[in-house]
Structure formats: C-alpha cells, structure tokens
C-alpha cells in the first residue's frame, strides 16, 4: 500500500496551533443570547396585545423601558470598565418585562428611573447577569411601586372603553361579580400593559415550555396554589372575594408565573426547589391579594421568594446517583 508510506504530500497537524483544554471538546451550541432572545420572542404576544389594547402609549413605554435598561447596562459597563454585555439580551428582557409591568400611561421619567433601578440596583451592583439574587425587573417594579404608589396604581383604560374614560380599575379592584371573564382572557381590562391579555401570556408561556426554557413546576405550582387559596376564600365568602378564575386571569399572575418567577438566575435550580418556589409565590400572592394593603401581590411574592431561593437551593440538594447516607455515629 504505497499511500501508507510516509510521504511529504501527507499533511499533519501543526502542534503549535493545537489547543489544549479539558473535556468535553464539543458543545451543544446553546448560548445565552439564544436563550434570551427566545424569551423575548415569547414575550412578544403579550406585548402586541398590550399595544393593541392600550394604544401607542404602551409601545412608547415598552420601547422606553427597553432603551433605558440597555442604556444603563452599557453605561455601567463603560463606567466600571467591564466588557459590554447588553448584546446578550438579558437587559432587553429586563426592559421589556419592566415595560410590561407598567401602566401604559406612565410618564417617560418613570421608565428611565425603572431602568436605573432594574439594571444598576437590581443587577449590576451584584456583578451583572447570573449574580443578581433578585429579579431586576421586579426590583424596579417594586421600587417604583413603593416610591411612586400613586403613579403605579393608576391604570389607563383600554381603547375600547371609550374616549371619555381615562383611567380604570383593574379587575381585582372591582367588586366581585362585575368582572367579565371574556374581556380578561382577551386583555381588554385595566392593568399593566403586559399583564392583561391572558391568552397572549399563555401563548408566550407555551413557547417557553416548548423550548424548555422554564420549569413547568413554577407556573403550575404558582397558579395552582393561588387558585386553590382564593378558591377557598371565594367559597367561604363569594360577596367579598373574587372567584379563583378572576384571580388567576387578572393582575400580573400569568405574567409573573410564566415570565418572572421562572427567571433562571433568581429561582431554584432543582425541580423540587421550583415546586416549593412556585408554591411559596402562590401562597404569598394570595395572602397579599386577599388581605394585604397593596392591590397586587405577584411582584412582592416573587421578590420575597427570590430571597428564599438560596435557602430552598440548600434544602433541595439532590442526592447523587448511588448516594449512601453516612452511618450515624460515624464521624466523617
């Protein structure tokens, strides 16, 4: 076999150009921007619904929030001489989420302030993406809610409600029984611009689940526990408490359960942990909605559970394959 003879025409690798690294040497091709932009895509239906119902003001808020988040991300990175990170898409998600959590009619500076709170206070001070213990968009939303309660609890009416109606109550703020479920499904009710359309949010959630970007345990436990607790309250006193259907469809519950509670960075990593996390969110949301002073509890409850995440993570450390419990009395 002549070709097996060593001949100069056979080219061999140049060792100087070989890279050494630890195994594995192939990767799945998954990366952060791809994940982030899929999430953005999943948020789009709800955004479109928001713009449809609340008009161009909603678009303005969404764009402003996104722009301000990206701006602050870039500014901070320049200031601290860190590599630019806005292109990874996480700031864009934060911006859109923040916008979805605002009323369509908020002044421009609220969006700017929200971006500052979200990106700087909620994220970059902790070291940027991956290190923030709290969901940045929620830090901003709750910060604004505490700081500017009046602005944050006034909601624009949708376009179809007539030109003379400027503000309206959210379904949760109405008397039980006065709520139209169909309008809530569509999103033709008062509320933050990204949280009203249940159908669009469910569609987005389906995208997230289909791409395996979220753990199903979180939304299921979250929504389920809210439904059960508010259901009991409604059953006990239907005149005072909304039906669980209203609770599930209204406020930021669907938005929170699918898009905010599922934030990877700030929620538990294991499935068991996700279940506990979702349950905790649901219980606290129900408590605040039924008896608390703020009109809505989703943001607070997720923020609180974010704080619990390290503890949950610690409690739900899974046993390794073939784990044997150390014998008692034996000191390791």
């Amino acid at each position, binding site marked *: 076999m002549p070709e097996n003879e060593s001949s100069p025409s056979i080219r061999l690798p140049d060792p100087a150009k070989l890279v050494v690294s630890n195994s594995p040497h192939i990767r799945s091709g998954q990366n952060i921007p791809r994940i982030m932009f899929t999430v953005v895509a999943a948020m789009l239906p709800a955004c479109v619904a928001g713009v449809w119902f609340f008009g161009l003001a909603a678009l303005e808020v969404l764009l402003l929030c996104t722009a301000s988040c990206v701006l602050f991300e870039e500014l901070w990175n320049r200031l601290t001489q860190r590599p630019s990170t806005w292109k990874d898409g996480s700031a864009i998600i934060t911006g859109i989420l923040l916008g979805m959590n605002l009323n369509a009619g908020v002044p421009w500076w609220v969006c700017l302030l929200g971006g500052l709170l979200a990106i700087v206070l909620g994220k970059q001070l902790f070291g940027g993406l991956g290190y923030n213990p709290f969901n940045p968009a929620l830090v901003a939303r709750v910060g604004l809610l*505490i700081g500017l309660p009046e602005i944050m609890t006034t909601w624009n009416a949708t376009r179809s409600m007539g030109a003379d109606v400027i503000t309206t109550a959210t379904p949760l703020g109405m008397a039980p029984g006065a709520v139209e479920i169909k309008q809530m499904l569509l999103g033709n009710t008062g509320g933050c611009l990204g949280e009203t359309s249940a159908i669009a949010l469910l569609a987005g959630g389906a995208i997230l689940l289909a791409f395996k970007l979220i753990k199903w345990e979180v939304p299921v436990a979250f929504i389920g526990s809210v439904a059960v607790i508010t259901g009991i309250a409604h059953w006990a006193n239907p005149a005072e408490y909304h039906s669980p259907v209203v609770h599930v469809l209204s406020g930021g519950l669907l938005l929170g359960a699918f898009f905010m509670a599922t934030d990877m960075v700030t929620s538990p990593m294991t499935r068991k942990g996700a279940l506990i996390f979702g349950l905790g969110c649901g219980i606290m949301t129900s408590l605040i909605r039924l008896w608390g002073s703020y009109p809505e509890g989703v943001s607070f409850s997720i923020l609180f559970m974010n704080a619990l995440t390290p503890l949950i993570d610690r409690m739900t450390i899974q046993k390794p394959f073939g784990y044997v419990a150390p014998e008692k009395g034996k000191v390791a």
Partner: protein
Amino acid sequence: MSAMKEFSKGLWKENPVLVLMLGMCPTLAVTSSATNGLGMGVATLCVLMCSNAVISAIRGIVPKKIRIPVYIVVIATFVTIVDFVMQAYAPTALYEALGIFIPLIVVNCIVLGRAEAFASKNGIGKSVLDGLGMGLGFTLSLVVLGGTREFLAGGSLFQVKMVPGWTTDFMLMTSAPGAFIILGLFLAGMNQLNIRKAKREGKTYTPPGLDCRQCNICDLGGE
C-alpha cells in the same frame, strides 16, 4: 495638637457611621429627613460626651468585673435625662419621629464602644473631646444621610422644598428599603474614595467586610 486629633478623628478618619459602622439602628431608622438626623445626632452627642466624661472620671475606681454594668448604668442615666429634656423642650413632631430610638441610645454601640475603647483608658479632657468628635461625626453622617434621602425623595432639605417644581415624591427613599440602599451607596462611595487613594499610593485597598469587631464589646468578630 493631640487634643485636636482626638477631636477630629471622629469626623472623618474614624467616622463612627461610615468607617467604624457603629450605631447602625438609629442611622438607618431616623434618617428619613435631615431634621431627624440632626435631632438624633445631637441627642447621641450629648449622651456620648457626658458618659465619656463620667466614665473617664470614675475609671480609676471601677472594679474591673463590674465595669460594663457600671458603664451601662451611667449611660442609661444620661439617655434617660436626654429623653426627658427632649420630651420637654424639643418639637413634638421630632420627638415622636425619633420615638423609641432615644431610649435605645443606651445600646448604641458607639456610646458603650467609646466608653470601653477610649474613656476607660484616657483622661477626662481627652475623653470629652473624643466624645465630642465622635458625636459630631455621628451627627454629621446622620444629617448628610438624612439630607440625601430627603432630597432624593422630594427635592427638599430640612423640610424646605429646594426644587419647587418637584411635585411627585419618590417615597422609596424615605422608606425602610431606601435607608439600607442609600447607606449602602454611601459606603460604596467611601470605598471608592479609599480605592482611588490607595491606587495613588500604589497600594491595594480591600473594602472592610461586615463584622462587628469595631465596637469592642465582645470578642465575636468576623463570623
């Protein structure tokens, strides 16, 4: 010269709030406005000076075993006196705003800390100066913190609107979370200054970790 040093160290170099991180409870609780900060600061200043003086005076005769209880009794006495005086002569709104934190000066680590760390080892004059300096440093920090929070919340200082057009108050700043956040930002600012300074001098600076070692009351530090 050295008297000046005893006095001035509390203002900046050993500022009780921003450097030693003592007396955090009142610092956070009452600094929702510059006025409150001033009131609390002055009250603490009085207690600190008086207790430093007395403790320094009796330092020679206090048996070591009961020195802490004795110091606490002395401090508690002055705190109660200040409490009465404020109740009698200070504006009611201020007294109510400071609320429970006036009696709690007793357990403010600055006071007991200075008693232990300084007054029990130094003469009366020096101790009074130390108390004055530390107290002023405390007051200053509280006023600055309170002023910042008040200004950021609504553009006012000492209840006077500095920015007349500012109509919507940003209440996060005066709320409990705001207290933590603003103080955190202040400390970061201090760190940044120190980092710059260290860089100029060709050294490295590590921001202090959170341990309550500085109060000198117990030996639990660092954990």
